[in-house]
């Protein structure tokens, strides 16, 4: 792996927007508009992702090597303006690390709520 735990730790906690973008990219590469729709669908429009927010985040995530550009999947209509993004290993690790962090928080709350 090309990353170390320190690098991942410095990225946490992920902002909700970054978290949702990574989530949207888990299964397949997507272009920006498709990420937007997926995030809005998954969050029932609560994240309310718009182009400025999305591409601002993408720019930052590219800089932090959480995602990278990729070839369009074969079979998708080629709109030259659309670029496809895929999650990097760093991104996947960050997503998992964030999930673990949230899990431990959730577990903590549950435990206290019970006792």
């Amino acid at each position: 792996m090309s990353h170390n735990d320190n690098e991942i730790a410095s990225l946490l906690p992920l902002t909700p927007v970054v978290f949702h973008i990574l989530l949207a990219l888990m299964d397949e590469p997507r272009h920006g508009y498709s990420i937007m729709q997926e995030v809005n669908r998954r969050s029932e429009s609560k994240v309310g992702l718009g182009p400025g927010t999305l591409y601002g985040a993408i720019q930052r995530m590219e800089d932090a090597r959480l995602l990278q550009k990729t070839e369009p999947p074969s079979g998708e209509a080629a709109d030259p303006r659309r670029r496809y993004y895929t999650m990097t290993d760093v991104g996947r690790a960050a997503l998992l690390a964030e999930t673990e962090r949230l899990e431990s928080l959730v577990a903590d709350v549950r435990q206290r709520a019970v006792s």
Partner: protein
Amino acid sequence: MNGQLVMVAYRLVLRLYPQPVRANHGEEMTGAVEAEWRRRAGRGMRGAAAFFIWLAVDVARSLPSLYVMPMVRRIRAGSRRRVGRDQPSSRRGREPVRNISRDLRHALRAFARNPAFAVTAAVTLSLGIGANTAVFSVVDRVLLQPLPYPESENLVMVAHPVPGYGSGEWGLSQGGYFYFKQNSRTLSDFGVYTSPMVVLTGGDRAERVGAAAVSASVLSTLQVAPTIGRAIIPEDNVPGAQPVVLLSHDLWMRRFGGDESLVGRTIPINGVAQEVIGVMPPGFHFPGQSTALWVPLQLDPGARAVNAHYYSAVGRLREGGTTDEAVGELRSLVARLPEDLPTAYSTRFFDESGFDVAVRTVLDDTVQNASRALWIVLGTVGLVLLMACANVANLFLVRAEGRRREVALRAALGADRMDLLRHYMTESVVLAVMGGVLGVCIAYFGVAALVAVAPEGLPRIDELGVDLRAIGVAGVCTALAALFFGTVPLLHRGDRDLTEHLKEGARAGTSGKQHQRIRSSLVVSQIGIALVLLAASGLLLRTFRALQGVELGFEPQSVVTARLSVVPAKYEDSAAVQRFFRSAHQGLEALPLVSSVGMTLQLEIADRAYDNATDIADLPDGGETRQIIDQKFAGPGYFETMGMRLLEGRYMERGDLDVAAPGAIVTRALAEEYWPGESAIGKRIRPLFTRFPWHRVVGVIDDVHTEGIQQAAKPTVYFPYTDARPTSMAVVIRSDAPLSTVLSALQREVWALDPDVPIAQAVPMARIVADDMARTVFTMSLLGLAAMMALLLGAVGIYGVVSYSVSRRASEIGIRLALGAKAGQVGSMVLGQTLRLAMIGIGLGLIAALALNRVITAVLFGVASTDPLTFVVACALLGGVAAVAGFLPARRAARLDPLETLRSE
């Protein structure tokens, strides 16, 4: 609004984004916005509004974070690169673009540091810009934009004013039409028409629709041709020609499903089969919105000219002609009428009537009534924008004051005046653009709201929308606002010594008096404007109250009205038609849910009375007179059902319809005018045009506002409807049952007698009264809204100025307190300053309001435009708001800790 425009706008917004985001993702972002617009715009106004909110939220959310986040990161990383970022000014000229983008970034960062300032300023501005854009959209569509005909500015209406016979205008006569058409050189084309209502039968249900009977030249004058089939041609106008009809696009789609094979087939109109020859283009509804079909007018050039004026006329001025020219020429033609058409016009008639000719552009004619109110509203929101600008200028001044040191520092480091100007202009432009974008969103909702509350009669309201022109206006507002409050703070930067600035910055001393004076005058003018608006909306409120208090002369509650129109061709003669109406009346009367029922030709408010010659006899001197008075035609039961108050005698009865001994009802005003001091009962009166025998007055009713709430009640006589031999009458039913129940009972009764009679214009009478008030209510609610915004903006302005002056004078106040001044004295000193400003503003506002009151007089009713009560209340309200706005800073001043303020020195 089209997608292209949205994309152009978004590309402009995109320039605000940091360069890397723009370069790497700009195209994708535009693509995403375009896709989203396509997805949402399909859902109409709501979808479009949702889109703009979504986009505005996104821009507002992403922009600051994109600029602030890198800074935060740099600061976290311990970078000190911010020091020395300003390059020596000598290098700036070479990189104007980079400088502008840097200024932009500076501006955004500054706003991010002080979001309260940016948000207040942008929201204030957006309210002003939004209100202006919305109202401009209305005014633009209703008043400014040409009608949907080629070169519509050349279209004119022609009519005959007859001052000798009252204020109304007559239409053209057939003989006059041919005479003008033949002899006029100033009109290149000229047509006449009438606007009947017709009954469409066949198909599932009978339907009563608006029609126009036109000369072929009407369509050629308007230069509009059918999209399918042929137009009406002169041969169609010849009496005895095959009856044909042109359909409106709406009617064709709605009733006939857009069936192209309909052309060439016949449809029954008023019971007569007429051949459909074509379909007019969508949106063509001349002369009125309700016009659904056009039939040829029967015109006979060879007919003997008679003095009968049935026709409305539309003409087209020849290239480069003016209405004045046309009036001049037509007047000279009119003067020759007694000579050339002696069968119709005698010189005696001319002397008596003052027979004249008037030419108006069609646009003027269409919007005559609405224009005054709309201009008032536009002026009002213009004032609100001015106030918003004054507030933002104030905010900027306060800020500029606080940033003297920064400015001095920049100057000391080599920034020249151009740099400073550019720097501050950038800030104001960014703010104005934010306000403008938000304002357009507000306007989008505003127009939807306006359309929703607009009175039904407002012309062309259906064409409304925020369009390119309105957005252009928003842009202009924005640019002016940016210039205004961008330069105001700079004007007074002056050429004073730099070190002076630095010294001043270090010590909050006596400087800035000039700024304080500007701010004070801004506040004074705001208060003045607020007073004008408050007084105007107060007057309209009183108008509204007065209108509600008007004694209509009838009780509209619990009365349902509908119009019944028979197809005359089905009946052998007029008597048979009258038998139908009588049977319908009797059938309805017998229904248990109906407490009373009546019929009339001219429903109160909705229909006009005929102002016709009437003979009145048994005058106090025993003689008789012939007068033009309002004639109405009604039947038994009408007066009771309408709840008209009987003052003397009795209501109309069935027997009064008898030609042998006809009866009539007169209003109090008529009785008092012609038979003063004696009972009107038994006096003789008759409608001239029917050559009927004398009618005996059987009852006197209280005055009725027959032409609307704002029109005075005129002397009116009600003759039996049988005199007029109507084929269409309004039935009025008093019943406590719900509207739908009454209407289904009405349908059963009427259709049992004749299934081809449509029941149209079925509304509660109360609705007709409410619609009549709607235009005033519309103006009033807009003005009220504007006045409220003005009051709010005024309060914010006062608070800002006084509060700032308190903080600037903190040390002075501290010294006063330390020297033994009481807290109360300090408080009242500050409050006094506020009230002084308020008084000056109110005084100037009063002068302005009185100077402007002529403008508003036209829309007032039952209240003088100088109504003292309204003005006193407006002044008091404004003074009270000023006192409250000044109270908070005054209290703060009184509570200052002298030690604290002196220590900060």
